């Protein structure tokens, strides 16, 4: 392996890791707000890609308008998903709630297959040229993923730390009861968190669409993002981002080193980290003291 190959693989890895990070952001938000682990987040991302595809290509609205409409409709979908389904199971045992989200994922995937079919489709985006610098060739779409991730992280950070609404969401996710007593509309805020998470997932679907193609198997991306978030520590956003980057960068190198197990290194890495540190690299939850 030459130096430029290493640089190229790492750059691709970073952009892949950013894609994972975009998905991971969504379920870490949901987890922090409600302690619900949304196993269906990969499916939300897939749904986002399909919606954008529908608006942009099938209805012929063009990429940017299609993207905006697709992201908005996913936001509405996420809000309704919480308001209609997830709100009913708050307080049930954690195990039942995982099983519910897995079942929802199964349903969404089957539904997408029924509506859009199982064949892979491509979503033409305005970033489909290659960039050359210093012996490295990389698609502009890969760089766009990195930029989008940085931008979205910045915007979300501003939203959560600088606006009244963001602070209210933070309060509700720290202690629902206390927040409720201070006249914070906890139910609506939780649904709003779901809407934001679904919108971020839609952006992830849209940005990764040129790289992975749009089909129902895209939802597997969600499980890898999950692995990334677990490596970093599920309860913290910087941890999840770091974990996703580690997974993204390590994957292409490991695939290159031992090809028979190609595609599952993300999970192997996660299992290895969990065996050493069961709470992830940056733990956030502590055992209850009696």
């Amino acid at each position, binding site marked *: 392996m030459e130096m430029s190959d290493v640089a190229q693989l790492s750059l691709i890895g970073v952009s892949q890791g950013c894609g994972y990070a975009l998905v991971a952001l969504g379920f870490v938000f949901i987890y922090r707000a409600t302690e619900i*682990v949304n196993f269906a987040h990969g499916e939300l991302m897939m749904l986002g890609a399909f919606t954008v595809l529908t608006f942009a290509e099938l209805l012929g609205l063009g990429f940017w308008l299609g993207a905006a409409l697709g992201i908005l409709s996913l936001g509405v979908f996420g809000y309704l998903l919480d308001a209609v389904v997830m709100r009913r199971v708050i307080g049930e045992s954690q195990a039942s709630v*995982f099983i519910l989200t897995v079942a929802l994922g199964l349903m969404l995937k089957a539904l997408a297959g029924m509506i859009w079919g199982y064949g892979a489709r491509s979503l033409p985006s305005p970033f489909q040229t290659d960039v050359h610098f210093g012996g490295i060739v990389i698609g502009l779409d890969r760089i766009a993923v990195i930029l989008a991730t940085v931008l979205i992280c910045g915007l979300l950070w501003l939203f959560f730390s600088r606006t009244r609404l963001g602070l209210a969401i933070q309060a509700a996710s720290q202690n629902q009861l206390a927040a409720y007593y201070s006249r914070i509309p906890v139910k609506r805020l939780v649904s709003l968190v779901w809407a934001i998470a679904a919108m971020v997932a839609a952006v992830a679907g849209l940005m990764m669409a040129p790289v992975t193609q749009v089909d129902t198997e895209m939802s597997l991306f969600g499980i890898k993002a999950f692995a990334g978030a677990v490596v970093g520590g599920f309860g913290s956003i910087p941890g999840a981002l770091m974990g996703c980057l580690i997974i993204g960068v390590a994957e292409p190198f490991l695939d290159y080193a031992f090809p028979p*197990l190609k595609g599952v290194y993300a999970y192997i890495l996660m*299992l290895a980290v*969990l065996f050493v540190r069961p709470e992830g690299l940056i733990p*956030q939850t502590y055992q209850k003291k009696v």
Partner: protein
Amino acid sequence: MRVLFKTSYDQDIDLLVLPGERMRVGALIALAILAPLLLSSYYLSELAIFFSFALAGIGLMVLTGFSGQVSFGHAAFVGIGAYVHAVLVARGVPFPLALAAAGLLAGGVGAALGRAVSAMHGFYLAIATLAFSIVMETVIGAMEPVTGGHMGMPVPGIALFGVALEEAWQQHYLYLAVLLFFVWGVANLMRAPTGRAMIAVRDSETSARSLGIDVRSAKMTAFFVSALIAGVAGGLLAHQLQYLSPETFGVGMSLKLMLMIVVGGLGSISGAIFGAVFVSFLPNAIDALRALMPDGLVSQAGLESFIFGAFIAAFIIFEPDGLHGRWRKLRLFLETYPYYKRATFIRQKRYLKTGRFR
């Protein structure tokens, strides 16, 4: 509440305590024994697949239903059992030995995983088992010299003590015997200190620890027993599938097992059996429903998995105790009519369980 009037100490160690329970279970077993007289050999082999799934479901029930450890990767243990059994039988190892080895090896892998994940809780465990199952599927595919890789491997027939069991009714009795043995074993285990420790760990890890239960070893035992039963189920299933490929034991099968125990009712052996009945006959019910649906919907490929998902979701939202819970409510309703109170079965909800400092 029902008051059980006990007249001898022997009643304390009975497995079936409620009046009528003995009769119902006896009737079910009698029906299973008489099945070869009533059914054709095609339905008998379907029944054998049902027995294997019910056994795997009981395995998962020990782990998820009784010990509270969610596993989304139980198909991996079924797969390990199936492959070990098939490889050993093909090498000429007698059937009972091969089945025991399949169970023990799967149990060993399960105990190792259980030891590694015993410090995890909640969804870390679910995701770790899911990842384990995905990795296992790939590893089985990559071990081509032994397992035939993705091309698959054929499974030889059953021969018990030199007698080839080729007829469907012979296999039926063998499968029934294995299933009943494990049902009896698990019922006994759950009454013993080991099983009670598992239930205590499920209900509250903190309280279990403060009562002097070794939480770690309780979890490990649960993983061992559960994976052992799943491995034996895999060995039995291998003979009915006749051809093994890694994809059979993927996430889809894990979800099917999960559906079984959720629909049946977490935390009861009869739940696993009810659930297996439900899951085994759901495809037939979906086929029957197809006649009623518009043409455009019938030909859709994803219909079955959509309905699977819808059933899991509906059960979790509307009846978290599953068919077993529904049955208990119905029975109490009939027994205490007109004094039945809906509130008897309402469980307290708990919000935001973990302590967070940021």
